[in-house]
Structure formats: structure tokens, C-alpha cells
């Protein structure tokens, strides 16, 4: 662990010039920020709260070509699925918020476990360096500190940036982070007072997020209740009432990982494609027979919150499946709030 300090201009110039990485940076596009690969026409904007879309698609694209095949019986190997050749060059996500980096750690247990490894997720993840940007001013919808994170939490990060006004102080956490920072010119060793300034910014941010009354979540009480007690509690009709099953929460969520697999054919060539899916949609669980274990809306809403706050906890024993980014709270068209629902479940 060591520090480097950069003038902001040098840092941005360095990101443009670094070799050997595809560098994703936050960019303002219309009204919202989004992570895009840097090039000469793209100016990173680090004065953002967070991107509207989570950066999950950098590791886990919304659509992934898995296999290709030929449906012409005259061709050799007709109907035999072949892996699509893919490269996984080194890439870096610079300016990722700590909640979103933590989210990749939460998702990792699904795609990378002792029995099965998802080849595309794991290869992209391994090829990626995560350079975080601590949050000086958490927002009213932020609750990372309640779910095992924090505005300057380092889980899943290779280095973290502290915004000191006209400069970035970079704390290098892993060798992977060191390799990336070493490739950016203009870095200096910081003074003690720079590190002190960063520490006080961090303390202030932590104080601010923890003083937000909206983030009280009775996670401990909820953890102690048996799954069936919460599942059968007479709360779900009321909890799910406002939901319109639009799926925006699952779409924006950095820890939602569910997917669908579909075949697409054009003329004689076909692809097997994996697409993001959502537990909010009835077809997600519809059997061929017509039977549907989650046919009603309240069952689907219950599934989403039970998965995040109970099933995941039970399965992996390491916290909830939520990194507290607050996107679902912010963008839900009917103002559903996972923090409130957590407390209803815990009662």
C-alpha cells in the first residue's frame, strides 16, 4: 500500500496516454453519466455522483454472444455449437464508486464458484483493474455503509482516488493497481498533509452518510428471522402494491445477475446469446405446462427482496446481495425503497 498524488490535468492526460489498457471513465452524456472507453474525443468528468447505469456491463454485457452455429445441413459441423472467439485484453475502470466495486465482489460468488466458472465473466473480471473514486458527498439515496461498504470502502478496488480539489490523491491497494498507476506519468509522492486531508474528507463523508436517518436498516433483526417466517409474513400484498413490475430496479442494480439464453438465426447462421433478465417478469419462471410458481406480482416482488436480503445471506453467509448504491431507490417510478421494505420484513 502506498500513495501517489496527481494534478487533475496530469491525471486526465495520463489516462489518455496510458498504454496496454482499455480505460473506462465516467462521461456526461445528455443528462446522465455513463462509463465509456476513453479516446481523444472523450473527456472524463470525475465531478459526478454516480452513473445512472451501473458499470456491471463492463464485465457482464447486457447481451453476450456465447456460441455460433450453422443451420445448413450441407455444411460441415452443421448444428454443432462452437465457441465464439473472444479476446479479453487488459482494461481498467477509473472512477468507479466503491459501492459498484463492492457489487462485483457480491456477484463473484455466483459466476465463480468451486463447481462452475462462467468463462466470460471470470475472464473479463480477471482482465480488469478497478480504480475507485471515493465519495466526498454521499447522496440521500446512498446507504453503502449499512451493507458492508462505505464512501471510501476498498472492497474490490485495486486503487482508490481521493478528490482533493485540484488534485487526486491515489491510494494504491494491490499490485494490479500499482501496475496501472505506474503507467501514468506525472505522479508525485504526497506530503503528509495531503494524506491527512484525505483522511479528514473520508471521516466527514462517513459521518455524513451515517447521519442520514433514511439509512436505518434493521439488518440484524432481519438476519435472525427464519426464511419461512419472513416468506409467510402477511406483508407482501401491501409491500408489492405500488410495484408496476417495470424491472428498472433489476436493470440498474449492480448486483442483479439473472440472465436468459436465446438462439437467434439469420439465414444459415445462428448465435446462442445470453441476455440480462429480470425476476420482475412473469415469463421468467413460466413452465412449459403453463404452471407458474411466481405468477402473481406479490410473489415476484417477494422473490426480489427475499433474494437480496435473506436467500443470499443464507446461501453465502457473507452479508446481503446489495451494495447500497441507491439506484433502485432513486429511479423506481413508484418510489419503492429497499430500506423501508427491509424494516417491514424485519418487524
Amino acid at each position, binding site marked *: 500500500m502506498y500513495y501517489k498524488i496527481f494534478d487533475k490535468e496530469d491525471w486526465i492526460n495520463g489516462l489518455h496516454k496510458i498504454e496496454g489498457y482499455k480505460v473506462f471513465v465516467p462521461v456526461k452524456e445528455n443528462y446522465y453519466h455513463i462509463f465509456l472507453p476513453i479516446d481523444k474525443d472523450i473527456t472524463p468528468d470525475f465531478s459526478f455522483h454516480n452513473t445512472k447505469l451501473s458499470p456491471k456491463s463492463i464485465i457482464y454485457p447486457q447481451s453476450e454472444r456465447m456460441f455460433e452455429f450453422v*443451420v445448413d445441413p450441407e455444411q460441415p459441423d452443421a448444428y454443432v455449437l462452437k465457441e465464439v472467439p473472444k479476446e479479453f485484453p487488459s482494461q481498467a475502470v477509473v472512477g468507479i464508486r466503491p459501492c459498484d466495486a463492492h457489487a462485483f465482489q457480491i456477484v463473484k460468488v455466483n459466476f465463480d464458484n468451486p463447481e462452475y466458472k462462467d468463462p466470460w465473466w471470470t475472464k473479463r473480471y480477471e482482465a480488469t483493474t478497478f480504480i475507485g473514486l471515493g465519495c466526498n458527498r454521499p447522496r440521500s439515496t446512498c446507504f453503502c455503509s449499512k451493507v458492508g461498504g462505505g464512501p471510501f470502502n476498498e472492497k474490490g478496488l485495486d486503487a482508490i482516488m481521493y478528490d482533493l480539489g485540484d488534485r487526486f490523491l491515489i491510494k494504491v491497494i494491490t499490485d494490479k493497481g500499482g501496475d496501472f498507476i505506474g503507467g501514468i506519468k506525472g505522479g508525485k509522492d504526497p506530503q503528509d498533509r495531503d494524506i491527512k486531508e484525505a483522511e479528514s474528507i473520508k471521516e466527514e463523508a462517513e459521518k455524513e452518510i451515517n447521519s442520514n436517518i433514511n439509512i436505518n436498516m434493521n439488518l440484524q433483526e432481519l438476519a435472525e428471522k427464519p426464511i419461512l417466517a419472513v416468506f409467510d409474513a402477511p406483508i407482501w400484498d401491501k409491500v408489492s402494491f405500488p410495484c408496476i413490475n417495470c424491472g428498472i430496479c433489476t436493470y440498474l442494480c449492480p448486483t442483479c445477475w439473472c440472465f436468459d439464453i436465446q438462439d437467434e438465426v439469420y439465414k444459415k447462421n445462428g448465435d446462442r446469446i445470453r441476455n440480462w433478465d429480470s425476476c420482475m417478469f412473469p415469463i421468467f419462471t413460466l413452465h412449459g405446462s403453463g404452471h407458474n410458481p411466481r405468477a402473481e406480482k406479490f410473489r415476484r416482488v417477494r422473490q426480489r427482496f*427475499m433474494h437480496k436480503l435473506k*436467500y443470499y445471506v443464507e446461501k453465502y453467509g457473507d452479508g446481503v446481495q446489495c451494495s447500497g448504491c441507491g439506484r433502485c431507490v432513486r429511479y423506481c417510478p413508484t418510489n419503492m425503497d429497499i430500506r423501508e421494505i427491509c424494516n417491514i420484513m424485519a418487524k
Partner: protein
Amino acid sequence: MQNPYLPYPVRIEEIIVETDDKSLRTFRLRFLRPEHEKAFKYLPGQFAELSVAGKGEVPIGIASSPTEEGYLLFTINKVGLVTSHLHNMKEGDIIGIRGPLGNTYPWERMQGKDVVIIGGGFAFTTLRSSIIYMLHPENRPKFKKIIVVYGARRPGLLLYKEELWEWEKRDDMEMHITVDGTDDPDWKYNVGFVPTITEQKIKSADNAIAIVCGPPIMIKFTQPVLEKIGFPPENIILSLEMRMKCGIGMCGRCNIGHKFVCKDGPVFSLAELQQLPPEY
């Protein structure tokens, strides 16, 4: 590590129409490459994803037994996009297979015990696999009595008829074939619903394990019968179905509580299911 989503190519060697309404057909599949056949090591109770290029995949229980070497059997009900397409395919056509997936019936626990097999309708596929497996001369001594209750709505809807008649004649197992009803005057077997026949024929739960596969309504009414005979919930074994995509516990749709039917199941004891939300 092998890409867990990549199917092995297989050739359809034979298609057998099982039922008189033609809605169930058994497909005999042979691997194109011997190394794939070698890698596909399974036990009764497991399933596989059958893959049709351009249509998609379906999770289907393996109907053959590992003691039947050189091929795999799958009995497929014509239901949706992929299964309807499969029903229109011909011998010689190429499809894919991914697996084996899921857990098995509890073979270790069943050793030295009576095995009661209760099946209904077309949910007899992994039960056929189990019977063939247990009757293999190497395996038969490992189990005590083998008792089978198998029913369908009418005689024409029974699967694997030739084998059923053969099993009826054997003296090292007890067969109770039944139909809900029939107008065939020559019908030699039982008439009655599976739960009723189970109650009449199964006398003891001592040192016995029951495996039950069938439509939800049959399971619902067989369960109290088994409990009455004296089977504790941990000795009642069920196999579940769910909509699936990945088959390896990643795509997120086949969960019951914190368990995935594809990876933690499809085989669960009633005792295990009683701990989980009733959402299946």
C-alpha cells in the same frame, strides 16, 4: 476448465413413439466423440440440457441408466418450442447435450433398504433409469425389495410398455401397474389412482425409502398415504421440475428459497422441502 454452457454434439439414433396420443417420444442419442461419452458420467435422478441449434435448450431427466452403455435415452413430452421441434426431428439429426446436471437419487442411503418407486404419467423417466440401474446384476444385491407403483390415465399413456410387462414377470421385484380407468376387457393389471393403489399395496415403511415422481396432484395425494404407512419425511424423496436456462445455478430463475432446483436439486427429500418456501 470446460465451458459449462457448451453442449456436446450427439446424433439421434432412434425415436420411439411411447404413447398412443404420440405426445411422448423417447430419443436414443449417441455422442459424436468418444471423449464426450467418457466425460458424461451420471447416476439416476440427474438431468441434462438438450440443445437444438436455433431453437434453444430444454432440461430433461435422463431416462437411461449408466449401466446401459453407449447411448442415452430421453423421453420428451411435446410442450413448447424446443420439444415440438424435437418431435419433428428425424433419426440421424444432430442435437447437443449438456450435463449431467443436478444431484442424484440418494443411492448411498438407499443401499440395504427396500426401495419403493411411485410414478405417475410421463414422470417415469428417471424412475425407469433407477429401476434398470438397481436390476443390473452388479447392483441388485445392494438393495432389498424393489416395489414399483406406476400409473397413467389409461393403458395407452404408459411409458416403456415392453419393459413394464417384462418387470411384471420377474420374481426379484414387485410391480403394481395401474390405470385411472380403461374399457379394455383384457386389462390384467390394477385400475385405480396411484395413491389408492399405493395404500393397498405398500404395507410397511420399515427400512424403506420411497421415491415419488408424478404430476402435482398425484404427489399431493400420495404424500399423506405414505405418511400414514409410516414413512418419515426424510425417507420420502421427490424430484422437482422448474423452468431453467443455465442448469448450473447461475441464471437465477429456478430457486426455491435459497436452493436452486438445477444445482441443489432436482432431488429433494420431503424433509428438505418442508424447510423451504412452498414456491414450486
